[in-house]
């Protein structure tokens, strides 16, 4: 499950480095979390779909770290298709924001599903995270 997700993530990340991705390759991804990174308006958009927990947070970490290593002016993490997030997933987002604050404030975060917003409210982190409307 995890390795499949990582492979998929790396496959999509190859877009950053300009490698051609063959359309229609492979079977649909059914992992717990899938991550894709695309370039948009000079920035990078990391889209996460699925569940963000202890087992999948490292996939998001890896994608955000890879994006940070580029010269992207803005890094947007789109979590609107994340159907479940717990404190372990939230921690990955907070750590990304702490890194961003030390490195040009490049991070942006979509507001997420009602479940994600409930967690942000419970954890009282609304002021901490760099939310943007999609």
């Amino acid at each position, binding site marked *: 499950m995890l390795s499949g997700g990582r492979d998929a993530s790396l496959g999509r990340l190859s877009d950053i480095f300009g490698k051609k991705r063959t359309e229609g390759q492979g079977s649909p991804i059914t992992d717990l979390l899938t991550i894709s990174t695309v370039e948009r308006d000079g920035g990078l958009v990391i889209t996460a779909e699925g*569940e963000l927990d*202890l087992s999948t947070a490292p996939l998001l970490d890896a994608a955000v770290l890879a994006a940070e290593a580029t010269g992207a002016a803005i890094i947007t993490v789109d979590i609107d298709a994340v159907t*479940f997030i*717990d404190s372990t997933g939230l921690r990955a987002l907070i750590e990304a924001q702490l890194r961003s604050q030390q490195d040009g404030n490049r991070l942006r975060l979509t507001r997420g599903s009602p479940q994600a917003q409930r967690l942000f409210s419970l*954890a009282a982190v609304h002021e901490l995270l760099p939310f943007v409307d999609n």
Partner: protein
Amino acid sequence: MFVTFSIDLPRDATASQLARQQVADRLVATLEPPVLADVMLAVSELVTNALLHGTGQIELHIEVDDRSVRGEVIDAGRGLEQRIRDQGVEAPGLQIVGRVAQKWGVFQGTTHVWFEILLTGENPLVGEPPPGRLSES
């Protein structure tokens, strides 16, 4: 309305997802969606806690009656309760449980944590978590 079940979870990274899936499958017809979402969150936090801090097999017990949902996550670990005594409730997961549940606690000398979400009355308040109650097992 009355539902009780127990499941054994593997000590690996799939445990919290398996636990959430079981809770969703078994309680989707019983609980209102916002309550089910909170139960899934509390279960995910406690199973993650057991993975990070406990040892041995992880058990999840759920009891629903017309008053409340009570959940317990049990493993063979020790010391979670001691860490809470020493450091206060610092683990973010436990803080989240304290905010979705009206009551929660840790049995002494164990990694046996329980929570209770009431089905009647006010929704869980957002604010400071109540202190974890330490109970005799």
